């Protein structure tokens, strides 16, 4: 893998344009990607006049205002939505990692009758979106008396997240040198002990799982809307959606709500982005 800056020094013949061209385009695209986000965050700290008279200016002492945030905290259940999202995403991802690592360990370490079939059976869940079974899921959840509960969401997200997580983790388990497992067997370790020994070694997979499993759960609108639409169980995504729909003409409140919904996940992302990309790279190159 050519991870570190390989040829830049060699190509002294390359002219300036060829060297700077990529940077030029990349910087331009970064502006396209960030401009809308920055614009919203910036204007959320301004008064209504400031938002409309000078949308591109950062808040000044004259236009600075927190009125939008006051409306959001006064009217909506945002802390509660946020807590619901934390509970649902947190418990889902923990269980996905636990169940998923067990299954991935088994599929990657053992040859057994039906291993291919189990693998293919799980692969259906990677290709076929779980949403297509929504009607069946809703009937099942209602019959279990779980409508409008966070448990319903957790169970569905478990089913949704497991197939891809197992696939990613199995790739990482396969990269663990065989000698390690053999040595453990010779020392008389049980299969469960070996699972416990190997699992910390697949930690680099966490980043890829974060991108492909955790973020979709946090951001999902469909299942909260259908399985748990009550205000008490609304997640941050659903809560924001409903709040924005109601306050559509209150610009201060809308901008503040958008900012509040964005900032936590952006902070998380900036904190972990390096691991995420590294993890995707490590899983794919090989």
């Amino acid at each position, binding site marked *: 893998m050519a991870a570190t800056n390989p040829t830049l020094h060699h190509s002294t013949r390359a002219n300036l344009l060829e060297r700077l061209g*990529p940077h030029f*385009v990349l910087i331009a695209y970064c502006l396209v*990607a960030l401009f809308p986000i920055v614009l919203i965050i910036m204007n959320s700290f301004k008064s209504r006049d400031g938002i409309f008279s000078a949308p*591109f200016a950062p808040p000044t002492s004259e236009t600075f205002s927190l009125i939008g945030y006051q409306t959001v905290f006064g009217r909506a259940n945002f802390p509660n939505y946020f807590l619901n999202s934390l509970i649902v995403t947190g418990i889902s991802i923990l269980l996905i990692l636990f169940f998923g690592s067990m299954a991935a360990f088994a599929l990657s370490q053992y040859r057994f009758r039906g291993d291919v079939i189990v693998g293919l059976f799980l692969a259906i869940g990677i290709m*076929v*979106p779980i949403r297509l079974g929504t009607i069946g899921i809703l009937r099942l959840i209602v019959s279990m008396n779980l409508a409008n509960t966070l448990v319903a969401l957790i169970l569905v997200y478990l089913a949704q997240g497991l197939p891809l997580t197992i696939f990613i983790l199995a790739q990482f388990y396969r990269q663990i040198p065989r000698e390690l497992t053999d040595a453990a067997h010779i020392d008389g370790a049980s299969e469960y002990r070996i699972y416990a020994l190997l699992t910390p070694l697949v930690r680099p997979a966490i980043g890829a799982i974060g991108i492909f499993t955790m973020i979709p759960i946090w951001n999902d609108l469909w299942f909260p809307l259908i399985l748990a639409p009550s205000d008490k169980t609304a997640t941050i995504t659903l809560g924001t959606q409903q709040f924005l729909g109601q306050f559509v003409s209150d610009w201060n409140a809308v901008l503040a709500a958008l900012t509040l919904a964005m900032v936590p*996940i952006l902070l998380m992302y900036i904190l972990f982005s390096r691991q995420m990309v590294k993890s995707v790279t490590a899983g794919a190159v090989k």
Partner: protein
Amino acid sequence: MQTPHAKSRSFPFHIVIFLAPAVIVYTVFMIIPLIDSLRLSLFTITDDKREIFAGLNNYVLLLTDPKWSAAFQNAFWNNVKFFIIHMVVQNSIGLLLASLLVAGGRARSVYRTLIFAPTVLSVVIIGFIWNLILSPLWGVGESVLKAVGLGALFAPWLGLAWSALPTLSLISVWQFIGIPMLLFYVALLGIPEELIEAARVDGASGWTAFWRIKFPLILPTVGIVAILTFVGNFNAFDLIYTVKGAQAGPQFATDIMGTFFYRTFFGSQLQLGNPAMGATVAGMMLLIILAGVIVYLFLWQRRVATYDL
């Protein structure tokens, strides 16, 4: 891979224990509901809530009865347009950005992080952000276009029948471009530097080296990106619902399979919800997605040579 020996004769209880939790949850909450939903698409539900077997009648209705087929075809073709715009715009810009990133030197991790940022946000947030920016009320979009001399082009794109769907598609492209970029980037990193150096020594320009050497080598990734885009697009819902509501206006101009499914199942101001027909729409979506997957697996993956680098 060898079997861990000693115990392979006796029944492998440990394998069952390792697999059981994942397989059970996945089967109960995904596979069985999916089958139940498909089963329901073969039934009619009477007014007193009895289910009567109807064979493929619901599918025939959906495809031929004027009451259903016009709405279905509208949603299907809109979804095809949605997909084509993603394939052409999102994936080609994603490839361009990825190839520039590879040449991006030290700053590339910064570029990568920034360009990927919109992808981690929820579609609800993105939908509202663009709704505000394109709103003639705020005028931000218009000011930006004026600044680059294109002010005359501005129109309330999200509200006009001809432009609403392309605009929503481009918003989605803007959000998800990070995914093809990252996948192409990873694939391009996997190409050994010596290969490119050798081509350069032989006098190939950067352009030639890209299309004659790099691109053929990342064709497997092109296929993965295409099938991911296809499945994601024919399953999309959140953006249209957030910006245009379940009615997917104006006059269903932005209706795609996901919103059509939602409306059919739950009903709307204009019609009552119909679980059996909803299940039928879901069944059609499954067929469309399976068709895409089959094309990918048998027509693309079989023909594309993979090189072991």
